């Protein structure tokens, strides 16, 4: 879930080329609709969206949490990270983030679940 077109495009390209199936939405409303209609193993969400926050997304879908939830944001204070943890995100990546950090998050999730995640 990312409302910045270039970031969404390039992240989708990277994840697709590394073997993942990716859907992109740009609003909280779209994110909630997507998560209610399909089980996603991984959610990567920007925190600042036109109609809400990434924190709102996980709260709205708390009954069916993904295996891996990654928040991406330009805000990275300890309070922001704490709110992400409380909302259910496993990782909080500060923009601009490295793709290595995305890879690391996937590896951590796979190690914990002993399953390939998001493929």
């Amino acid at each position, binding site marked *: 879930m990312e409302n910045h077109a270039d*970031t969404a495009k390039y992240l989708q*390209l*990277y994840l697709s080329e590394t073997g993942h199936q990716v859907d992109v939405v740009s609003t909280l409303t779209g994110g909630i609709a997507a998560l209610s209609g399909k089980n996603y193993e991984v959610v990567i969400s920007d925190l600042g969206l036109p109609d809400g926050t990434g924190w709102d997304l996980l709260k709205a879908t708390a009954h069916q949490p993904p295996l891996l939830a990654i928040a991406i944001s330009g805000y990275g204070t300890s309070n922001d990270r704490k709110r992400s943890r409380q909302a259910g995100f496993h990782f909080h990546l500060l*923009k*601009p983030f490295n*793709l290595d950090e995305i890879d690391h998050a996937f590896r951590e999730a796979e190690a914990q679940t002993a399953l390939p995640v998001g493929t």
Partner: protein
Amino acid sequence: MIPSHSTNGQEDFSPLRLISELEEQQEWFAQVLHRTLCQSLSGANLLLQLLERGNGASTADALPWQDLRQSLSGSMQELHGIMDWLRAHPMAGIPLPIALRELAASRGVAFFCDIPEACPALQPGSALARVIYFLASTGTWGKGRLQMQLSHRNGVISFFLKSEDFDKTDWLQRIELLEPALQSRARIVGASFTVTSDEIRLIYPAPRTSLEDVPCSH
């Protein structure tokens, strides 16, 4: 909507009020940077990493370096826009009506004014004059047709910028970003500031109860 601490023409320079305004503007500026430069540089950073890793070649023939150049160019434009908004926009020691006339001429904006140049409230040393000039200089940045008016009726000074065939989406997005800074300045001088879909308006002194009570200004 009228700010709850609007002071009906009484300038509020209490330390707490000013510190609160500074803190609000600091938060506003962080949001501006987050919504503009941070986002666009994040996109450019991702693209650069894709290029380094050799991703994208099979998916988009033209992907890469040209996209990166465009992305960085877009970031620079955003940076210039932010710098333009943040510049002091000095009135250069001349009365507001003259300063606005010169500004309007330089930006191709229609300007109407029925206030004498000697009006004490609009001299360069006046906080109100500087707030109005800041509003005018930031609100007229960009392309398109705008109408600017400064008038005085029944003790009420009103200033408005009205969009004509302006690219309203672009204009409104910019005004939306600027609104906290403009509201903050209006509060300090005891004016009210409102934004609608095609107009921004500052009224001084702020009306006592509602905008409907303000005498017609034109």
